[in-house]
């Protein structure tokens, strides 16, 4: 099984990289972007028997800093 963990900055947390990307897109002539948020994707190849609850614990303890970040876990067989 595979878990794809998507980590994003929470709303309201300044994202300087997102702002830089937005600025670059604007400079390239892409006018249709109102906002950019950059996050990260972490893919876990899970050993048989690993539970979603364990993946959630991994997110809470290490993969995301829940002070500033939120996360989403997508499990695929």
């Amino acid at each position, binding site marked *: 099984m595979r878990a794809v963990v998507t980590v994003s*900055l929470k709303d309201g*947390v*300044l994202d*300087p*990289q997102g*702002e*830089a990307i937005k600025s670059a897109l604007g400079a390239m002539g892409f006018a249709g972007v109102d906002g950019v948020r950059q996050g990260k994707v972490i893919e876990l190849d899970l050993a048989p028997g690993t539970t979603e609850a364990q993946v959630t614990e991994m997110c809470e*303890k*290490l*993969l995301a*800093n829940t*002070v*500033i970040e939120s996360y989403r876990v997508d499990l695929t067989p």
Partner: protein
Amino acid sequence: MKAAVLVFPGSNCDRDMAVALRAAGAEVRMVWHKESALPGGVDLVAVPGGFSFGDYLRCGAIAAQSPICRELRAHVDRGGFALGVCNGFQVLTETRILPGALVQNASTKFICKTVTLRVETAQSAFTARYAAGDRIDIPLAHHEGNYRIDNAGLAALRDEDRVAFRYEDTPNGALDAIAGVLSANRRVLGMMPHPERAADPALGLTDGSALFKSLAEALVAA
């Protein structure tokens, strides 16, 4: 004062920290991150600057899971003193020993320069030899020094006089110009600027010396 300086793979201010502590009279032991115990009788644990674990995942995140950080947590829970500078501050927030988080500088650039800080409180073992309102020149060097905390947390820091230092001219976007914060019991200080780089006349800056002397005085009897 007995001090332990933690050393992670990628720490690079650990020896500077030891030099500054020793100059203030401390007995210093360096402690590798895989150690599962602190030296006996340690009063202060210093978490130095650098790029622990290459800043992978988030600055300080992997160091915060090191075996020695469990001991750091226990030391703090016993009422022990701790000082985190730069990456050390990031480690202290990642362990949740200090509130808030440090994100990328608003400019997205690495900043390396000497800045003027305003000492906001003399009510701590770290700042007793300063006076509130003092201006001190301290170098900083970081890419993720932009302090963030939620509104309730910020209100608590202000109400409890726990902002130790503010930037005179905020270089990194930090909320409320915060450069350093104290724990609720005022025994843990985290700060982005490097007082250990301003503690020897040979380096041209000495405004950081008082921090180490304050600690040595407070902990001499501890």
